[in-house]
């Protein structure tokens, strides 16, 4: 990187070419709209989407929808991760519990969260509770499986050392195993965030009284395609932001002594 030629090349590869790619795609998009005279209902131009986004951001209803979706996600995610890590820890520590729970966990894992959407609507209506339960369910199964696997992969030497030092099994599980498995669990927590966020959006499509998923389906029914695409951009941005935030938080917690 010290070499000026290498530096110039890095700028070209990391900055100029990606920028060219984005511009190329936007230009192709705009050209398609202009060349085929597409109406905004079918495919709005990038500018129309940007304008729709700008108008959305200025309304309070939009921020209410974002807030509701984020609230559902945050509460469900918190419940799901805490319960999932706790159960996964017990599964990793106790052989008997692991063997007893595996068939149940594995078969429930095939009932993907999306299949639960109609049932949560029957049980909880279109309220936020149903979405919270759904997110917790989705996150729980990601966390329990990856925590149990991470605990099982902890170096046995650590277990032996801990036992030699006279730690009780409970202390060994929390102070040694959980700590050693933390990096794997942290990356699972990040993957679970993406899955949980999508579960919220999907649940709001089918039945909700507020939220981003409802906003975007309403826009689709009224054929406001620029708003639909702007909503997709927001869903993507929030999802990426949430994942990045959880990744940063997990790394910070892990680096702290």
């Amino acid at each position: 990187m010290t070499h000026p030629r290498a530096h110039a090349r890095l700028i070209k590869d990391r900055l100029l070419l990606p920028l060219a790619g984005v511009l190329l795609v936007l230009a192709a998009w705009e050209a398609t709209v202009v060349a085929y005279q597409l109406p905004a209902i079918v495919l709005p131009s990038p500018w129309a989407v940007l304008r729709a986004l700008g108008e959305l951001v200025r309304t309070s209803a939009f921020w209410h929808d974002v807030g509701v979706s984020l609230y559902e996600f945050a509460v469900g995610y918190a419940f799901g991760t805490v319960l999932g890590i706790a159960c996964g820890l017990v599964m990793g520590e106790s052989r008997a519990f692991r063997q007893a729970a595996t068939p149940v966990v594995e078969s429930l894992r095939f009932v993907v969260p999306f299949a639960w959407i109609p049932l949560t609507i029957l049980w909880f209506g279109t309220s936020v509770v149903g979405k919270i339960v759904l997110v917790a369910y989705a996150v729980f199964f990601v966390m329990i499986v990856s925590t149990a696997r991470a605990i099982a992969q902890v170096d046995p030497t650590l277990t032996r050392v801990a036992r030699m030092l006279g730690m009780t099994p409970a202390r060994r599980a929390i102070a040694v195993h959980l700590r050693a498995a933390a990096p794997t669990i942290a990356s699972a927590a990040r993957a679970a965030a993406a899955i949980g966020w999508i579960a919220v959006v999907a649940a709001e499509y089918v039945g909700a009284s507020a939220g981003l998923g409802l906003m975007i389906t309403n826009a689709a029914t009224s054929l406001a395609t620029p708003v639909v695409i702007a909503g997709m951009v927001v869903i993507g941005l929030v999802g990426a932001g949430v994942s990045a935030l959880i990744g940063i938080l997990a790394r910070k917690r892990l680096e702290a002594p």
Partner: protein
Amino acid sequence: MDPKPEAAGNRRRSPHAQAWLLGAAGVAIALAAWTLLAYLLAGGGGVINRLPTPLRVARDLLRYASADLARDVLSSLRVFLLGWLGGVVCATLAGLLLGRVRLLANVFLPVVEAIRPVSSIAWVPLSIVWFGFGLTGKVFLVGLAVFLVVIVYALDGARRIPPDLVRTASMLGMNARQRFASLVLPGTLAEVLIGSRVALMAGWGTVIVAELVAADSGLGAHLIGVEQSYDVPAVMATMACFALTGFAMNALFTLAERRLMPWRSDDTLAAP
């Protein structure tokens, strides 16, 4: 409750039989808890006052199986297979192009990375605007979901061809086309195969959402139908159908993968 993994070997009962016994006990306990909960909630109010017993759900499942189940499953599977195949083929081609041509990768990889966080689920309303409620829109959504998963594996496979092998191949006098056919392509396809299995569940989940939102045929349409008539046992029976179909697909593919790539250890073939 013995947490000593190294002492587990010298038990008297065979470990296999014990695992089966405990597993069966776990399932029995779960079913018993479910039944108990159903009876407890049947009388009183509370939020979940519509929980049927497992027996009731099983009966509904049998009734559905003797009626429209086969038609609905086939309809959903058709959507899934078309989308999955399309997604895998597109992702393989894109992965080869972006993985082997540096300039294309530098230009288009950021675009792919920008689209990836927008999950295929977020495309559902747009796909309805574009394609309506028919087959095309659902196939598009499933294909997109599968593409977004498999492209990562295809790229990885195309890029990670060991340079030593490439040098050896050119030293042996292979030309570019031979190198591609006997080195790059097999290496990429092996990774694509893994990605295709991971994408099974992503694609199947997308089928569910697409059919729930654009409910005109398939298992998802049936699920919405019984939901709207407040038939909780039938809802749970349909959920079981989704799970069983997903499980069967996964098992089948794992079997095929083991046949196609016997050199991969069982470890990497374990659940995704």
